[in-house]
């Protein structure tokens, strides 16, 4: 196990460095001069030169890259061109809102997926199975940039039950988390169903039945527990997708998280802020994937000792 963890970590580091490099060069390729963005096109060349020197933009790109990595190692993501304060502080302020939304979306997805997936497996080929399949297919086909406005039209504008946008109490969470969690729910329904149906034919399930356990107990206690493994993997991998999906959901519902901040930074050409946001989202995505992989091996002893 230790060997595996070390191997996985060793693979993780070059990938992380590669992604940091890509982000750095991408942001430096964005057309437009950040100095001109900050000072305006009419600023004198002396002022522009001074600011360029102050920001280190007069240095060769390679030197700027090394400085960027050094600063990053010290937790310094630079300063926003427009907002007051450093990029790291701005992101730290917004990150909890995104995390809250992502976790709420995951909760919604699990809440929808487990009952529907279990029902579909237990009542295979019944109307319940078919309904959950249709629900899952629709969930996959509905992009969140349409589902969000649609939910708003029905529940906020039409029925007036829920707030249209913003972050606040529990009611503010419902529509954004439903919008963000729907795709994950759709994927999980099929996953729960298929893993349950695979597990239900195992020998130990027949033994449980032979012992006289009730059918529900067999499904929920024995089959479900053992099919959770594949579901954990999907949940972990989808967490990263939720984080990225929050960019659109936060834009729709004016949710003050890092996703919305990313779009605002790109639209206003605030390069350091955009760079910081992309870095934080992609690093979180990488770390969550790494943790999922490790958790997967911790949960299943067959994988742990299998190598």
């Amino acid at each position, binding site marked *: 196990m230790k060997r595996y963890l070390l191997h996985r970590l060793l*693979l993780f580091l*070059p*990938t*992380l460095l*590669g*992604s940091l*490099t*890509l*982000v750095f060069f*991408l*942001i430096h*390729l*964005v*057309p437009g001069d950040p100095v001109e963005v900050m000072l305006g096109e009419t600023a004198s060349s002396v002022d522009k030169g001074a600011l360029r020197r102050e920001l280190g933009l007069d240095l060769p790109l390679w030197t700027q890259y090394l400085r960027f990595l050094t600063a990053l190692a010290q937790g310094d993501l630079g300063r926003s061109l427009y907002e007051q304060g450093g990029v790291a502080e701005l992101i730290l302020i917004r990150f909890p809102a995104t995390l809250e939304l992502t976790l709420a979306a995951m909760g919604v997805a699990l809440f929808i997926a487990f009952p529907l997936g279990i029902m579909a497996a237990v009542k295979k080929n019944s109307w319940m199975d*078919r309904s959950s*399949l249709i629900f899952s*297919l*629709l969930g*996959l*086909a*509905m*992009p969140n*940039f*349409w589902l969000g*406005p*649609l939910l*708003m*039209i029905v529940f906020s*504008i039409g029925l007036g039950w829920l707030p249209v946008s913003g972050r606040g109490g529990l009611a503010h969470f419902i529509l954004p988390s439903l919008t963000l969690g729907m795709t994950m729910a759709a994927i999980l329904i099929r996953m729960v169903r298929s893993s349950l149906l695979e597990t239900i034919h195992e020998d130990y399930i027949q033994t449980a039945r032979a012992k006289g356990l009730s059918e529900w107990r067999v499904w929920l206690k024995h089959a479900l527990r053992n099919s959770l493994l594949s579901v954990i993997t999907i949940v972990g991998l989808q967490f*990263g*997708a939720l*984080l*990225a*999906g929050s*960019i*659109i959901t936060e*834009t*729709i519902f004016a949710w003050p998280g890092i996703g919305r901040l*990313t*779009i605002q930074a*790109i*639209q206003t050409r605030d390069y350091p802020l*955009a760079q910081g946001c*992309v870095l934080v*989202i*992609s690093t979180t*995505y*990488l770390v969550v994937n790494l943790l999922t992989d490790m958790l997967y091996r911790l949960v299943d002893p067959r994988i742990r000792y299998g190598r």
Partner: protein
Amino acid sequence: MGDKTFLFTGLTILILLSGLALAAPVIAPYSPTQQNLEQDLLTSSKEHPLGTDKLGRDMLSRVLYGARISVWVGISTVSVSLLIGFLIGSLSGYFGGWIDQLLMRLVDVLMAFPGILLAIAFTAVLGPGLNHVILALCLIGWTSYARLVRGEIIAIREREFIHAAQALGGSPTRIVLLHMLPNLFSPLLIQATFGMAAAIIAEGSLSFLGLGVQPPTPSWGSMLNEGRQFLLVAPHLTTFPGLAIMITVLGLNFVGDGLRDKLEKKGK
């Protein structure tokens, strides 16, 4: 639903959609960019079955022309990504060694980003516009094909018929194209179908965020973005483009699922 039902329903949706996209200049009642400010935000009527938008443009015409954008984005993104992915995956899988290590690390780095985030970053660099969106989607889309091709090639490169072809003096290009490609056809076809659905949603997302297709060109994503400001007074502005995306993606997913079931059964 069986695989045949899936395939049939999906193919029917896709044929209809492609037909509507191709015939848009003939069947659309108005030009998609023709403004009529006196008739803005109208609901459904005989003259405008899907209503009009904030500039009085006919929504039916815009939705029909929007289909052309989506079909084009889907086909071009998948074709180019498939070509790049096939080339890189073949090189990686056939030759192995340091070429494989180098190319797969590049794939790892690109796959370390959530797709939409990287697409947003690429369009920020390239600037908005249809061709830039397609380019951005290709830059991230090829990686999954490369991994698939590499895996399949590694699985078959030690088979006897490949050794026989090598012994007969076949060049790597000939062996890959003539002997390996037919074995890759089924998984690539399935992947391409789902890839097309993903590309259409990604284009919609970018246009919705204002980074993709720019007005007045009618893309379903940008129409949704424009309609969002009028949710209270004109919900039809978001309903129809959204419905169009959903039906298209549903059709592609049906075909993908149907093909997978059919080809997997055949494989067994």
